[in-house]
Each structure stands twice: as C-alpha cells, then as structure tokens.
C-alpha cells in the first residue's frame, strides 16, 4: 500500500511540475501578448511614444518565445513521458512485487491451513487408533476370561462325569458273574453295622 502512495505521489508531482511548466509558458505568452497589446495601446493612446521594440524585434521575440515554449513543452512532454514511463515501470514492478507478495502470503496461509487440517486429521486418527487398541485389549481380556471360564466349566463337567462314566463301566463290568459267596462276609458285616437302622425302620413301619 505504501508503494502505491509513493508511486501515486511521484506521478502527481511530475504532473504538477509539467502543469507548472505549461502554466509558466502560457503565462509568458500571455505576458508577451499583454506587452504587445500594451505597447500597441500605448502607441495608439500616445502616438507620441515610440515603441521601444520594433515589430521585427517583436516578431523575433515572439518566435523565440514560441520556440522556447515549444522546446519547453517538448522537454516537459519528454520528461513527463519519461517520468510516466518510469512511474509505470515502477508501478508495474511494485504491482508485480505486491502480487507476488500477496500470492506468497495466500499460499503460505493455504499451506498453514492445510498443515493444520493435516495435523488435526493425524491427531484424530491417533485418537481413533488409540480407542481401537483399547477396545481390542478389552475384547482380548474378555475373550481370554471367557475361554478360561469355559475351559474350567468343561473340566469340571468332565471331572464330574468321568466318575459317573467309570462307575457305570464298573457296574456294567461287574454285572455278571457276581460271587455272593465271596461277598457274604461283606454283606454280614454291613448288616451288622446298620442293624440299628433296620430295627428302627421295622418299628416305624
């Protein structure tokens, strides 16, 4: 923005200088005309007065002034053109620099925004990954506990049923060929041990 003001100020200054030059030239012309008219008037009003400057001299002066004016105008125009060209070049350069700066700033902002978005995404993904890992750990622990409990249950069931299986096998195996004679001692001894029970049952019947 400062560059714009500077360039604008330079242009305004050059234009003012040119305007002043033109104004000065025009004023000179007006002065000359005024001087001519004054001389003419004075001569007409006071015929006795001789013009100081002869017409030829006056014409020469007019030519000189015109030439000087033209030269001044041309010089002013040239310098105005040069200053304008220079100003335009400067403005172009400044505009280019400014555009580059603006573009660079915007690109920088864009990159920063992208970086922020990228970082936010990375952070979010990290959170999601952490929660997934945590959930996986919880599920693994639960699964391990369930498997262990199921294993314990199966083993308990096996332990319980193996007794029944072995008993059933023994009963089946002993089912035939029972020798009561060999068991008679056991039978008599057991009856003796449970005598009281049998007596009580008979009394209660």
């Amino acid at each position: 923005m400062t560059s714009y003001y500077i360039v604008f100020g330079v242009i305004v200054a050059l234009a003012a200088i040119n305007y002043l030059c033109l104004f000065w030239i025009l004023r000179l012309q007006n002065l000359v005309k005024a001087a001519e008219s004054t001389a003419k008037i004075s001569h007409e009003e006071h015929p006795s007065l001789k013009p100081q400057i002869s017409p030829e001299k006056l014409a020469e002066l007019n030519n000189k002034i015109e030439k000087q004016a033209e030269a001044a105008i041309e010089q002013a125009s040239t310098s105005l053109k040069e200053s304008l060209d220079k100003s335009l070049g400067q403005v172009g350069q400044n505009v280019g620099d400014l555009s580059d700066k603006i573009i660079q700033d915007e690109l920088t902002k864009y990159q920063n925004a992208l970086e922020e978005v990228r970082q936010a995404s990375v952070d979010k993904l990290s959170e999601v990954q952490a929660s997934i890992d945590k959930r996986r750990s919880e599920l693994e622990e639960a699964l391990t506990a369930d498997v262990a409990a199921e294993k314990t249950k199966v083993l308990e069931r096996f332990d319980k049923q193996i007794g029944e299986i072995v008993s059933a096998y023994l009963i089946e195996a002993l089912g035939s060929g029972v020798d009561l004679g060999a068991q008679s001692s056991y039978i008599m001894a057991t009856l003796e041990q449970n005598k009281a029970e049998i007596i009580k049952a008979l009394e209660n019947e």
Partner: protein
Amino acid sequence: MSKTLPDAIASPQQVQILRLEIGRCIDLLNEAARRKQSGAVEISADLKSVLGANEVSQENLKKIDDLLAKTSTWQVVHLQLPATPAPSLRAKLAGWFRDNIKHELLISFELNSNLAGGFAVRIGAKQFDHSFRSRLLQGSGAMEKVLAQVLQGKPNAGK
C-alpha cells in the same frame, strides 16, 4: 423263644409252598385213612425241617399249617441281592435277621443285577442301599480328587 420256622424257611413264598404241600399231604393222609391204608406220605426237606423245628409229626400237619398261617401277620424284609443266593447263604441271612432284628420275620430274597455287588434292604417304603453301585456313584466325587492327584503327579493318589 423257639423258632416256628427254621432259618432255611425264610421267605413268604416258601411258606406258601409249604402250606400248599401241607394241604396236599393232609388230603393224601385223609384219603389213606379212608381207604384204611398206611398214612405215611413223602414230604419235602423243607417240611421235614419245619416239623423237626417244632417237634411235630406228620400226623399233626394241621398244627403246622396253623402255625404257618400265623406268619401272614409277620413283617417282611425285602433283601435285594445281585445274584441268586445259595440255600446256605439264605439260611445264614435269615438266621441273622431273626437272631438280631426280630424272631418273627420273613425275608423275601429278590434278584437285582444292577447292584453289581453288596445288597439293598427295603422295609416298607424305606430302603437301605449298600450295593456296590450306590457306593460307586456316591464315590464319583472321589474320582475327581484321584484324577486331580494323578494329573498333578502326586504319589499315593487315590489312597
């Protein structure tokens, strides 16, 4: 108190058979008396043992029958065994019951091959199971301990 029945006559079925035999013998003796023939009839060993236990002759079979009729009021103990007992074992068991529990008692011997060994006693609705089967089933919990000890490699597992 002297026994009415010898130990060899233990079950209600035997009593019934004896009573039938006594009835037949009485009929035969009466027929022989009617025909004025000799009154001796052939009787079974069981009837002989009953006559001997009560010191009664064949002529007084009616008396024995009356005594046997009274056994219908006796309590019956149902003894389940895994096999058919020999006559000696039956007498031994009947003798134990009558000597230790009650004199006037009948023992019904029942066959139950599921017992695998030992015996079971049923008196009315009450049952005492001392069979190998019940001991094996009750001891299935011990099987778990034995298995656990075996798996742990402990010596004297199961003892």
